[in-house]
């Protein structure tokens, strides 16, 4: 077993999960804020749609993504013809797949956090002369950040462990799209138990640390 066999998939996984979390967080916070604060028709349906990636089999999600961003899909064809970008079988494609799978975790956490912010604080800020942007930046976001950050950490953990959708969209190209979880599968298939064992331990340690950290964040601060 060479260190390259562990380090390359580890760094690739961190890169993919990092970008996926960033994308899922930005989108999740925006959608959660809209659904928590605005009243519009189809709000409940949108909520269900946003939660769907959490319950659907990753392979089904991966298939949908392939249909959308694949070379012949509407988005994929446009990307290729205008920007010359192909997502299938690239780490960017893997990041998009992981982002979609991780999105509901950010969304759910952020929505609960926004709904937990008392409206009175926002109203107090408005009467004190604040624009809606300032109310969001100075009041809503600081009062909701714990819940959002906890959701973000769960999303990162989920993105790190992503397998099904990533495999469908990005395949398993060593050094290019082969993330930790896929490398574990390949190692077991090839009968290389030493590599598999080590990869499994690394993944477990990272995921457990993230869960412990997010658990700490969700606990309310001690107020004497």
């Amino acid at each position, binding site marked *: 077993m060479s260190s390259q066999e562990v380090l390359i998939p580890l760094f690739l996984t961190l890169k993919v999960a990092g970008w996926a979390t960033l994308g899922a967080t930005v989108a999740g916070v925006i959608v959660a804020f809209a659904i928590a604060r605005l009243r519009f028709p189809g709000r409940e349906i949108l909520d269900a749609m946003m939660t769907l990636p959490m319950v659907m089999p990753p392979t089904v999600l991966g298939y949908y993504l392939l249909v959308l961003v694949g070379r012949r899909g509407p988005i994929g064809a446009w990307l290729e013809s205008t920007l010359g970008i192909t997502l299938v079988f690239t780490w960017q494609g893997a990041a998009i797949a992981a982002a979609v799978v991780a999105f509901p975790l950010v969304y759910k956490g952020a929505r609960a956090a926004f709904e937990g912010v008392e409206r009175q604080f926002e109203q107090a800020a408005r*009467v004190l002369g604040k624009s809606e942007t300032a109310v969001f930046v100075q009041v809503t976001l600081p009062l909701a950040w714990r819940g959002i950050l906890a959701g973000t950490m769960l999303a990162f953990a989920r993105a790190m462990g992503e397998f099904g959708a990533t495999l469908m969209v990005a395949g398993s190209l060593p050094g290019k799209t082969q993330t930790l979880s896929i490398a574990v599968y390949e190692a077991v298939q090839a009968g290389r138990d030493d590599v598999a064992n080590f990869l499994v331990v690394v993944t477990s340690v990272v995921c457990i640390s993230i869960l412990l950290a997010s658990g700490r964040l969700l606990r309310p601060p001690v107020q004497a």
Partner: protein
Amino acid sequence: MRIEVDIRKTLRSSGREFALNVAFTCDDECGVIFGPSGAGKSLTLRAIAGLETPDYGRIAVAGKVLFDSSSGINVPARERAVAYLFQDYALFPHLSVEQNIAFGVRNWWQFRTHVAIRRRVEDLLDLFELRGLGRAHPWQLSGGQKQRVALARALIRRPDVLLLDEPFAALDPLLRDRMRDELLKTRAAFTVPMLAITHDPEDVSALAQTLVLLEQGNVASVVDLKGPPYRDAEGRASERAVRGLLGRVAGQEPVASKPPIRAVK
């Protein structure tokens, strides 16, 4: 200073309907809206602040039209120059006392607070006897201190009017008298007119020059409390006369007086 209110709003929730139809003018420095809970006091005050939008009508404060349905005017809350003291003060829990007070005059994209603002905050901390508490957080404060912080936060913007939502309801009864005195002194020091809503008769006799009596969403009457029989030549309020008035106009049994605390003093 004149506050003109003439508004209507109908609220519907789960089959029940509440119709607010309130019109009054207050020319005095201290107006009080009195009524039982559910009379529409809060709704009226929130409409003046811009936190609720009436269905029809007109609101004007200090000569500025804040809302007029006939000409489509609805000034957003942030531009109304109206200060609002929430019943439980709504101090921002994530900010220190200093940051709470400076909140209304500081821009969020500026990392450092301007020297002039810092000096104003210091002055207010002194004035409200909060020296040494600038770095404390709201959960570390007593009820009276919270109210002072909320007043300082509201007044730092030099508003046209100070609106108070049940200002003493969240306080210990023993503290209420003291805070009423403090509020009157503050009002005089800042020369800011105020309009309070309450269901406590003692607030009426202590604060009101103009009294608006609200009942089931309608104005039952507007009474001038500046002269006799409600106030003697020295300007002291007669609690008996006020209680009699509140009882009579509200069409209920006279509001019971509260003997124990006063008797002990």
